[in-house]
């Protein structure tokens, strides 16, 4: 009997999952984006293995082959030092994905505990934390990252930190909203009643129950974070030469692109398609998970 009861409670969840899958499959754009993201991850993992010494590609200069047009040997052409642009673009995938993941991860590490604390304790603590997030949200999104990165000094590490600092308020807000509702639930009240310490309740009960909306939000943010990293690198505030970072490559290409179109086109396209894949997937996910648009 217990088992059948258990199955009964599972049934709506299973149906929910089936509906989501149906909706995800129904939208061709989302499906393509889904496979695109998987492909990008594969590239990020496999390419560094195939081209084991990335140094080899970074500093492997052939002055005699500089700024060659795309050809069979160099499908994306070569840059001003004669390096193969295709190889550099491929290696750049790992840089972009890795930095984006670390930046979002750091933002989560700051935002989640703060949001959970605000939502759980309420009152004056909530007020202080949330007004603090309001202040951070008072900066237009890219501006704060630019300001922080330029004051910290140009490096990829600082760019990641700058992004994390300008992104955490969004997560704090989401978690706080969730925490406010979860703390009214029976199991949290029960934990309180048996005298569990607040920190334990927050980390054992509140945060695990916010995971789903967080994953959705974070996956939707990856696209814009990749774009922000590229923008910072373009401004000279992120990755430094000779790293094959896409934004930096576009930035360097400025001196040559009028006579070597391939130099700026391909790294730019790499940014575009990567960000697009993540954004389309995020857009599709939101449409599926949002009950408002879901009913159709």
């Amino acid at each position, binding site marked *: 009997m217990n088992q059948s009861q258990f199955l009964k409670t599972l049934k709506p969840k299973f149906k929910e999952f089936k509906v989501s899958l149906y909706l995800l499959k129904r939208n061709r754009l989302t499906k393509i984006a889904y496979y695109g993201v998987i492909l990008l991850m594969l590239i990020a993992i496999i390419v560094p293995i195939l081209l084991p010494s990335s140094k080899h590609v970074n500093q492997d200069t052939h002055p005699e082959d500089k700024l060659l047009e795309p050809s069979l040997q160099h499908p994306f052409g070569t840059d001003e030092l004669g390096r193969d642009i295709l190889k550099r673009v491929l290696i750049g995938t790992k840089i972009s994905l890795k930095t984006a993941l670390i930046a979002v991860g750091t933002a989560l590490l700051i935002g989640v505990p703060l949001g959970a604390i605000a939502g759980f304790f309420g009152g004056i603590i909530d007020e202080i934390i949330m007004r603090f997030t309001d202040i951070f949200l008072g900066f237009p999104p890219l501006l704060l990252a630019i300001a922080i990165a330029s004051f910290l000094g140009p490096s990829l590490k600082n760019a990641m930190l700058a992004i994390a600092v300008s992104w955490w308020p969004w997560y704090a807000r989401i978690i706080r909203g969730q925490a406010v509702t979860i703390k009214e639930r029976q199991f949290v009240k029960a934990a309180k009643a048996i005298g569990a310490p607040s920190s334990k309740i927050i980390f054992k009960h509140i945060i695990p129950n916010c995971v789903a909306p967080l994953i959705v939000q974070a996956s939707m943010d990856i696209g814009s974070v990749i774009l922000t990293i*590229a923008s910072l690198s373009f401004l000279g505030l992120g990755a430094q030469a000779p790293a094959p970072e896409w934004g930096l490559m576009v930035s360097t290409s400025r001196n040559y692109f009028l006579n070597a179109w391939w130099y700026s086109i391909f790294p730019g396209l790499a940014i575009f398609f990567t960000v697009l894949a993540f954004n389309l997937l995020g857009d599709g996910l939101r449409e599926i998970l949002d009950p408002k648009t879901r009913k159709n």
Partner: protein
Amino acid sequence: MKSYILKRILLGLLVLSGVIVITFFLARIMPSNPAAQWVGPRATQEQIDKATIELGLDKPLHVQFGKYITSLFKGDLGVSLRSKQPIIKELKAYLPPTIELVILSTFMAVIIGVPLGLNSANKKDQVLDHFCRFFSVGSVSLPIFWVALFLQLIFFRWLGALPIGGQLDTKIRLLYEIPHHTGFMLIDSLLDGNLIIFKDAFRHMILPAVTIALYPIGLVARMTRSALLEILSEDYIKAARSYGLKERLVLWKYALKNSLGTTITVLALSIGYTLVNTFLVEAIFSWPGIGSYIATAVMSLDYPAIMGVTLFSACSYILLNLIADIIIALDPRVRV
């Protein structure tokens, strides 16, 4: 209602002061020594020490902060380390070209984004809708600094149809007296009745404006679409159709007016985004606005200049959002 607006204004002031504090302390974490920059690379330690005192950098942090706040209230943003000019004076000079760009691209965002979002919502899941969704997601996924280069490549290098950058042709600068009334080139040339300058200024503005407009067009189209999807399923839209009203009237008046609140909110956001996006492209187009200004400041670590632009942009963003919220709160026709 009144209490809401009052609360909203108070929050705006709080955020504003918070932004000032954050900007000030951010600038203090800078590892390099501003005083060394002030005196130049070949200065002796003695000169640097003197400059440190001159700039007030030897005083404790809270004293520096107090001084910063009092000069802020006097409208003094400090002096640029690079040009040794007052920041406020430089901002005033660099601002009009940027505002011109922002206004033009916001205008494009409205006249292209709104109809796109509207038609897309009306034809949900049809070809036009797929196109619009792809376009709006695509345009916010584009690295706009790259778009700038791409457009230069096509329209300057390959087609030779448009200038690569600047505000005016050098030839025109030499031949004519450049008008200076408002600082907005398009308006100034019209005020002088000089159509040649107007035309040339306009030609120079096309590429940067289009580049910058892409993002807000996508944003506005996307938000309009999602707002209208909800509105179009409302009973009053079905009712309007049941009374035999023309489809054009139903969509462009009955439905669109209901989405006005959303549109106002999005516009406030998108102007903020656009302003920051100019930081990425103005330098590419040699556009003499605050975008180019901050790009140079970033490269030369001119921290008072970076602070000034940051403060200015954040303030206008906060103000725009505040105005949007108040308009929506005040007008019963938008509030719903």
